[in-house]
């Protein structure tokens, strides 16, 4: 009797397993199709931010003394964990600006930046940025952030996510203080320019 019950129950269960397998296969098919019909993926936010960071040296003039010698590299420092690190690593190989190599320097949370020319303060480090920026305001470092109040805290450039694009916001007063000259080309594409001199 028990055996009978077992056998009779076996077939609906088996059919459920088949149904399950079909569902799984259907799911797989949809995944497959979605991938194949998807257009070329758009770049990620951090690919674009990395592109900005490695391009800024072309549009910025530092006081001569920040470079130890003519061939000294341009140091881009990234403070805190950020996806931008890997993206920068991918594009700096062999890249030069005015004959200077570009070097990436990673800084742990709260670490002093030391010698660098561009400093990216990741969103994760946002809470430390007012402190840090106050400390760095006279150093000739192009500070770049990605938070709403970065410019108010004394940062020079903010890479702001605006809908689907990355907008450039510049604080000229802070740049002046750091004795960094920003080219008009960069300013012309910035969506916000604060502390503009007449």
């Amino acid at each position, binding site marked *: 009797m028990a055996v009978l019950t077992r056998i009779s129950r076996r077939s609906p269960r088996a059919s459920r397993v088949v149904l399950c397998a079909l569902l799984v296969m259907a*799911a797989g098919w949809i995944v497959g199709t*979605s991938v194949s019909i998807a257009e070329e993926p758009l770049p990620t936010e951090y690919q674009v931010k990395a*592109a900005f960071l490695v391009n800024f040296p072309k549009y910025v003039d530092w006081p001569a003394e920040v470079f130890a010698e003519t061939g000294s590299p341009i140091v881009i420092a990234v403070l805190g964990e950020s*996806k931008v690190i890997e*993206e920068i690593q991918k594009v700096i190989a062999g890249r030069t600006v005015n004959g200077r190599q570009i070097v990436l320097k990673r800084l742990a*949370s709260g670490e002093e930046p030391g010698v660098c020319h561009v400093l990216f303060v990741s969103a994760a480090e946002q809470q430390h940025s*007012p402190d840090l920026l106050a400390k760095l305001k006279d150093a000739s470092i192009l500070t770049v952030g990605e938070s709403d109040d970065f410019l108010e*805290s*004394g940062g020079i450039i903010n890479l702001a996510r605006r809908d689907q694009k990355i907008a450039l916001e510049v604080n000229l007063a802070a740049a002046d*203080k750091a004795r960094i000259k920003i080219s008009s080309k960069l300013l012309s594409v910035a969506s916000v320019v604060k502390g503009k001199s007449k």
Partner: protein
Amino acid sequence: MKGNDGGRHAASEFDRRQGAELEAKQVFDQHVKAEKAARHYRSAPLMKTNSPIGRIDSGVGNWFNQSRKTAAFAGLMLLVAGAVWATDGGPVSTNSVADLSLEDLVNLKVTSVSRKEEKLDDAAAAIFVLGNDDIRRSGATTVADALRLVPGLQVAAIDSSDWAISARGFNSQFATKLLVMIDGRSVYSPLFSGVYWDAQQVFLDDVDRIEVIRGPGATIWGANAVDGVISILSKSTRDTQGGLVYGGGGDEHLALGGARYGGQIDEDTYYRVYGMYQLNNDFPLADGQSADDRWDLEQAGYRVDHYTHSDGQLTWQADAYAGNLADNTGDMNGFNTLGRWSRTISDRSSYEVQAYLDHTYRNDSLAVISLDTADFAFQHTFGLGERNDVIWGLGYRFTDTRFQKVNIPGTTILNNNIPLNLFSAFIQDEFKIVPDKLTFTLGTKIEHNDFDGFDVQPSARLMFKPAENQSVWAAVSRAVRTPSESFAKELGTFALGAPVVGPGGGLYEPTLFPNTQLKSEVLLAYELGYRIQPTHRVSVDVATFYNNYSRLVGDQPGAFIPGTPVGTLEVDPENSLRGQSYGGEAVVTVAATDFWRLTASYSLLLLYAQGEPATDAKSLELNAPTHQAVLRSSYDFTRHASLDAQLRYVDGVQSVPSYVTADVRLSYRPTPNWELAVVGQNLLDDRHPEQASTFGAPTVDVPRGFYGKITWRF
């Protein structure tokens, strides 16, 4: 030149002001950050197919074991397959982006990685989010205690290791109508229809947030998400790099210790490993004697995240724990492993595949049970035209419950092994009637289980934003609670209490018999909510509800079966009760100054039940506090020291009177890497009861306690 000087002057003035306000600013930023974290939540559910009860099979056998393995294997295979597919989509050449001009860069569209994150203000549901900072500042050492901060949740300690937690009523140790998930893995036990809170611990410093929905979430999450859903989400390993070690102890939390280390395997792959231990002291009984409920738990686990260049993320995590219960008279252990592959295909389209295995063993004063679960889920989101966003998914879950022993006298096990299958599918469309103003969401979940076949759980939600700082929402939804296996399955008969005098003057022991005809309990919920942020320092969130329950389970006395020395009074669970509840929750958050934040919340709950037996109906009415209020203050003296306090009022429940109590936490951070904290819990009286035991055991009191904790990050 003059202009330049002027600019400089203004700048230095600006900088000076900033300098003076620096400390304040830093402290405020922390608040803002916490606030921001709290204001975002994942609206599109990630693999939240979590109804733990599925199909019932009375057959036992080897076949079943095979089926379990097959299910697990199929899930894992699919995961791998998903991964293989997804890596096909080639990344955009990073170099080509870096070679674009500035002009092109500012005009370049990027993928929306935060696509699924929606502002809290836009959610057409009563949702509250506890951020990492909130949890740390609460001084809670367990997930259950951290939930005391959530407005509208009822959290009551039954003893040192058991909690009754629910939303909007029906609270007991087996709060049947609340679904709980940790990183997408359901921890709701189908056997008793509830959650063993002592076994649900996470490394609290690595928790990103705890999302709590009051009200039904069944359209997405499935059965048992009747009165609420709690989702505990840990941080990605990318956000927990480096080391963290903590240690401490006190008179109630005798010992606390843990360590985590996060590192990188290669440039796209991150990991973390952790281990932790806690030992908690006995609580007292009303007469001051020990309740002998001391317990401990040791747990370890890891998580690995791999990011692809095409917005894909592969996650693999596992945890294992073991602990002693009730002063070493009971024990528990378990392990789980979960894999998830998610990928954003385009701006509005993404998919996710998830599979997990979970093993739970528990030997306590009630029973020795083990539960194995294999779960697979798939989910796909896509845009349909300009205004429709569709999300749909499929799920399968297999659970195997083994009843090894029952420790309640007078109990017979009829069947000690119960395999269950659950199939589910859901679809939901979000239609923007007027973009940014008016959104209508309609969806349903369809599940199949063997208790009552198909369950349909639809919901309709409307969100209206009259202004940027205000929103009004309304919802109508249906949700079901599948009866627990022990009731609906021919599992055994359970002695309910002392013998009663029956016909002819003989003694009869009331015994609960299974009822395989039991149907799911049904809720029809009507909700209305309003949120406003009158200034940037104040936010107000009000949610109201009217719930109509039908087919609630009551225990009907049946036949008297003679026997020696005592007969048996058959008690049958039946869908013989119905109920209505209404009430609401209001939360006001005020950032009074840059370094002081206050949160006040009040919840009201009125519940009425009718049907047979009348005593059960009455008991349901008394199962939740009518009034609850929480006042919470977070104050930063400097950026090195902070003081947090919470004051809680909870109305009477059953035989337990109302109480007021307070927790205080003082924290000192001499450097960013070190934190010293002193915490006082339940400070306003020596001890008080919070919830009576479900099984007639003496009520245990919750005592005042203190502990200290040191945390080091490196």
